[in-house]
């Protein structure tokens, strides 16, 4: 497991003054339960007490942003480390809203380190970018070959005074996954409405983009075929139906994308896929992300 810029979680106990909000978490396996063994938060990010659904050993961690929204020039940093065999799900309490950023882009950096056998799910609420917003997000994952990760994301536009959709300037989400130090996946999502970014090839007239990236040794052709079948039955093609695509990555895993007209169907597609994996691989019940 690599450590960002040589800064260990334990060494750093003070906040980086340039950051608007910072969150660092380390999860370890204690007996059958995964527990937060170390945490640090500063500025506009907090973490709620871990929630263990129905007595499972797999904690749900909820990040909250008391400030309520991202503004221009904001810098957020989230760092999550899962020790050997540990598991956790990280979600948010509510949507991440990015307002106008005339002072310069808002930026978030997420670093995730997964030790051998660790399992991490990141299932945030939607990212809503408003008029004039520019948001850059970098997610860097370093994982062991037998670790497992599922990264979900939903992006949509906020309301603009003239009623025109997609008035934000740019949403750029770059995810890089390294497996045992080798680059495995680069997922580069870029939405720039002013630059043909909502044309027929970009969003195809839809307002919501949902994405799920899964890297896991179990995700073989058989899993993909079954997942595809389940999604095709749950979301049959038709006018206004989510447009869904799934594909194998160059490393064991898959990418799922869906274009939808509202948050409901976007989440329905993501949750259907995540819940199917939870059932198939972990015999776990469906996600229950009660917003506390």
């Amino acid at each position, binding site marked *: 497991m690599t450590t960002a810029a040589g800064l260990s979680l334990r060494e750093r106990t003070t906040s980086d003054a340039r950051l608007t909000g910072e969150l660092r978490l380390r999860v370890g396996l204690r007996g059958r339960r995964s527990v937060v063994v170390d945490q640090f938060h500063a500025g506009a990010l907090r973490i709620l007490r871990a929630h263990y659904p129905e007595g499972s050993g797999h904690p749900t961690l909820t990040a909250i942003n008391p400030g309520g929204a991202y503004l221009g020039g904001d810098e957020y940093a989230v760092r999550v480390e899962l020790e050997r065999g540990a598991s956790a799900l990280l979600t948010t309490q509510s949507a991440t809203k990015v307002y106008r950023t005339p002072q310069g882009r808002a930026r978030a950096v997420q670093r995730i380190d997964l030790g051998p056998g660790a399992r991490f799910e990141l299932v945030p609420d939607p990212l809503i970018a408003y008029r004039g917003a520019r948001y850059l997000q970098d997610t860097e994952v370093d994982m062991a070959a037998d670790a497992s990760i599922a990264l979900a994301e939903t992006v949509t536009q906020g309301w603009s005074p003239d009623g025109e959709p997609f008035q934000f300037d740019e949403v750029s989400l770059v995810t890089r996954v390294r497996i045992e130090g080798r*680059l495995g996946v680069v997922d*580069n*999502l870029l939405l720039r409405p002013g630059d*043909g970014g909502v044309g027929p090839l970009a969003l195809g007239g839809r307002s919501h983009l949902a994405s799920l990236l899964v890297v896991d040794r179990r995700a073989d052709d058989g899993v993909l075929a079954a997942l595809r079948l389940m999604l095709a039955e749950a979301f049959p093609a038709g006018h206004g139906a989510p447009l*869904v*695509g799934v*594909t194998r*990555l*160059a490393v064991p895993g898959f990418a799922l994308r869906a274009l939808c007209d509202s948050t409901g169907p976007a989440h329905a597609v993501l949750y259907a896929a995540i819940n199917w994996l939870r059932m198939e691989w972990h015999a776990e019940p469906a996600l229950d992300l009660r917003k506390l």
Partner: protein
Amino acid sequence: MSRLTALMQLTDSALPTGAFSHSFGLEAYLESGQVHDERTLLVWLDGFLSTQLTYTDAVAVRRACRSVCPHPAEVGPGGAEVGLGGAEVGGGAPDLGGGGPDLGHTSRDVGGLEALDAELTALLIPAQIRSASLKMGRRMLEIARDSFPSDGVDAYAEAVADNRCTGHYTIAFAVAGAGQGLDEETLVEAYLYSTLTALTYNAVRAIPLGQLAGQRILATLRTKVPSAVVRSRIADPRHFGAAAPALEIHQMRHEHQRARMFMS
């Protein structure tokens, strides 16, 4: 050695790279009926040019050129004009050619190609697009070893043979062209136009459209290529490989489309 004829052979639509069997997602739009005539095909090709071709392919061609060319050609405001014109100005000076016998550069630059090759494999998310790039890339390398030989071609072909690289089409094209003394701006423009040509001919067969309609589309696309060349030159490195989501979903859905003429 004429750079112009080398470029013509390299971009000839009859060059056996297998381009005729790839639609890069277009076939999924044909099936859904979103692309069905001259107008809708032009809109699609224009969209493909301004997204995947600009942010992934053109940038990859540029980075490959820079890896094998120790001294990239100066790009003035005239941009692409330096390209073939450079043959006259420079009098065919061999130092413009990427495959010079400078072993120091060769060994260092192969590392650059390896990193680019690995990054392309990681960022071409739809499986058929990744596999199309590799199939055409390996074929291009095979052609280049015989017909466009240079140190750069040898170095990339060896890296592929040793499994240090996987062999992507954009890189193979750039390395083959750079070895013939063709500069980055020329190769990017030629890559974009020749890819659009192959796609247009495939669509003319598949829709089907008249031959004259195909030529009208290409004439319009020719006017759009130069701005894509510029956009790829000034592109933020962060946006390398930025995908257009709807296009990507169609490329993924093509994997299980029932009746298919094309491999991608």
